[in-house]
């Protein structure tokens, strides 16, 4: 896991998909690859109100990322200083092994460049002291980007809330 945590406050998320567009606009990506995703859960009746929850998923920046060792060209890397997992487009040969290796389907295919592309937590912005595009421009401020040692237990509790109050539907 990288030094950073990208987390979401479920109660404040309005599922507007803006994060997805902020990400793609910032990376100048064509139609096809989507580096972060909003997944809708519900609506379902919770007491007397049909509730909807939206789950934000980007790359987990694993402690032992499966995408890195399978990369034959050394394009997929983990930054030693902060653990951000990223792909260097100069070195990527477009073999798609990372796409198959990742259990979450995180690396995406860029049909324009014929290379893999993935969430790198906007490391260029992070290096400039800024936050990732999705966090910077989130409408309701439901996304948080923090060093993991600063991640308060509140956030963890919110994640519990996601799975307890908005459990996946049976359908």
């Amino acid at each position, binding site marked *: 896991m990288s030094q950073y945590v990208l987390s979401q406050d479920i109660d404040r998320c309005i599922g507007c998909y*803006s994060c997805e*567009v902020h990400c793609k606009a910032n990376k100048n990506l064509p139609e096809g690859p989507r580096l972060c995703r909003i997944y809708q859960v519900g609506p379902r009746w919770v007491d007397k109100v049909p509730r*909807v929850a939206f789950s934000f998923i980007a790359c987990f920046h694993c402690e032992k990322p499966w995408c890195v060792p399978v990369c034959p060209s050394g394009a997929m890397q983990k930054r030693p200083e902060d653990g951000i997992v990223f792909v260097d487009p100069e070195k990527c040969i477009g073999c798609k092994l990372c796409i198959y290796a990742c259990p979450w389907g995180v690396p995406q295919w860029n049909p324009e460049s014929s290379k893999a592309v993935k969430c790198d937590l906007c490391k260029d912005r992070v290096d400039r002291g800024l936050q990732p595009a999705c966090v910077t*421009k989130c*409408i309701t401020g439901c996304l948080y980007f923090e060093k993991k040692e600063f991640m308060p237990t509140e956030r963890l509790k919110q994640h519990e809330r996601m799975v307890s109050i908005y459990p996946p539907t049976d359908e």
Partner: protein
Amino acid sequence: MRKSVFSMCGMCTVRCPIRVEVEDGVATWIEGNPHILAGSLCGKGSAGLSFHYQEERPQGPMIRQGLRGGGQWKRVTWETALDYVADNLSRIMDKHGGRSVFLSCRGGPFLDLPKTFLKSLGSPNFTNHDASCARNVHHASLSLYGLGRKDFIYDLKKCRHLVLYGRNMFESLKVKEAKDLMDGLSSGMRLTYVDVRQTVTGSKATRFWMVRPGSDYALNLAIIHAVIKEKAFDKEFVDRWTSAFDSLAEFVEPYSPQWAEKQTGIPAREIFELVQELGADRPRVVFHPGWMLSRYLDSFYASRSAHILNILMGSVEVEGGQIIAKGPGDYQKAGLHSLEGRVPKVAEKRADGVGWKYPHFDPGPGLFHLFYSAIQEEDPYPVKAYISYRHDPLTGFPDREAQRAGLNKLDLIVALDAKFGETAWYGDVILPLSGYLEKDSPIAVQKGKIPRFIVRRKAIEPVYESKPEWWIFRELARRLGLGRYFPYEGIEELWDFQLEGTGLTIRDFEEKGFVDLSDEPVFLDRKAGLKFKTPSGKIEFFSPSLEQAGFPSLAVYEEKEPLPEGTFRLVFGRHAVHAHGHTQNNPLLHEIFPENTLWINEQVAKKMEVRSGDFIELSAGGVRVNVRAYVTPFIHPEAVFTVHGFGRTVPLLKRAFGVGFADQRLAKGCLELYDRAGGGIAYLESCVRVRKAAEKEMTAT
């Protein structure tokens, strides 16, 4: 080289303040203005980059060849296009006078240029889209306060109870409003959400009422009834500022919550529960009087009743409730100079009849749809030329065939737009407007708690051969010998003219992109300082101007007839990544929501043996379309729902062309079906027939 530019978004008509980063002349980043929005922006806002740099937009002036709507165009120079428009306007005006030209737009803060142009021609026929949107709300507001819809701000951050009627704030997205609403909810605001279906906004509510379509007015009458019965209103405010309270109380006497339960499907007990909460929450209560409320023939009264509830709550000029929007004059500051003010008044009466035939409507923008009958009948006089300025009535207004019949009688249709709209495509000349990143705009005033001047600044050079409106209107005026009304060479001179006497220069906008006219908000004195622009100076539950025009101040509720078997109200609305009909072809937004579906109630669908993903046939008045079903329990059985803006017919828009369906096409006859008291089109009074489509009929619209 890198630069940072403060500007205003143009993806939808909210025009959020933005900051744009440009590297070597290419825009690379757009965010919400950090001083106002802390960087927040919606997806459409970020997709502004892909709008400007994709090629499916008008790239240069075009003149139609062949038949209208035939799609054959000749690319011409600006010189040729402007000469063509000016020559045709001259010829038409020589024969029929300046009044034979009308211009429509979508409202907003930059209207000085088009209004000046039209007025300089001697035409009174400036109009806008609002008859398809908020006219009912505006007129309802005027009939009570003498103040318009935009003269109020809803203080959502501090509100304790917000009641929304299908006003879907988390999907219709004004960034500041959505942020404030979420902050309000986080601080414990109660939200009662009333709609014919569940939305994202409703999913965050503390109370959700799935109301029978078209019965909002019945619901409000019952809430007023219960508020008065339970004495849950602000007696001091009502005594001080309203007239005819007793007649209101008497009028609502028969409309009990028990009565409303039968009309609306909302249990009487729950209406009483709401009223009890209101007693505790007032005056920090907002009954949202609606935004797009061109729905039913009684939408004006539905909105008026929501306004009445705000008044009973004492929610006027109060934190957490409605606050009266202040302009520069309210802070003893000079306003902006307008070009229009220098053009002689036009004495001619409006072709749409507003202001004389229909004295109860605001003559400002009149009513767009009434121009069609004026064109057809040449009554009160011939109307022969139409300038569509950033407005696409064939998408926004109902009944394509009826509209085209009207447009066909015109000698000239000119479209100024940055996109290929349905109307532009049906016109004679397309004059491509620069996109919002590519142009400077005049300085705008934004009324508010604190009034503000704000400006759109050019971030990048036009990608194609487009021009800004300050240039296009000036060039047209010069060709018509009216250049004196546009006395500037560049935009800087126009800004200097606007700012004369304010003590400000354009450089004052560089630090933040706007100038606030005060540091602290000032509230008017609720005991003595409120000014209502009604004849009595009070809030008028009984409105003489309405009564004089033949409309009751308080209308008797007319129960909606049950719909014939197999027919439904076709309700339409928004998705968070689309702005009406403007964004369907945007590469990034199309990817997220490419096609609209038809929401249909699960019980109804079961009877029709329709499952999600099946094709459904919709028909009305000879128009038939097929669309995929989305089956859900979260929509009222009398309604079906879709996202507006799809079913585009311009073949150059490769992503959006022929995808999904255009709801407005099915609102047959609605051009003449409008709320006579409020002026708004009654889209939902026209019903659609729904049946399962046979496999072979799976054709596009």
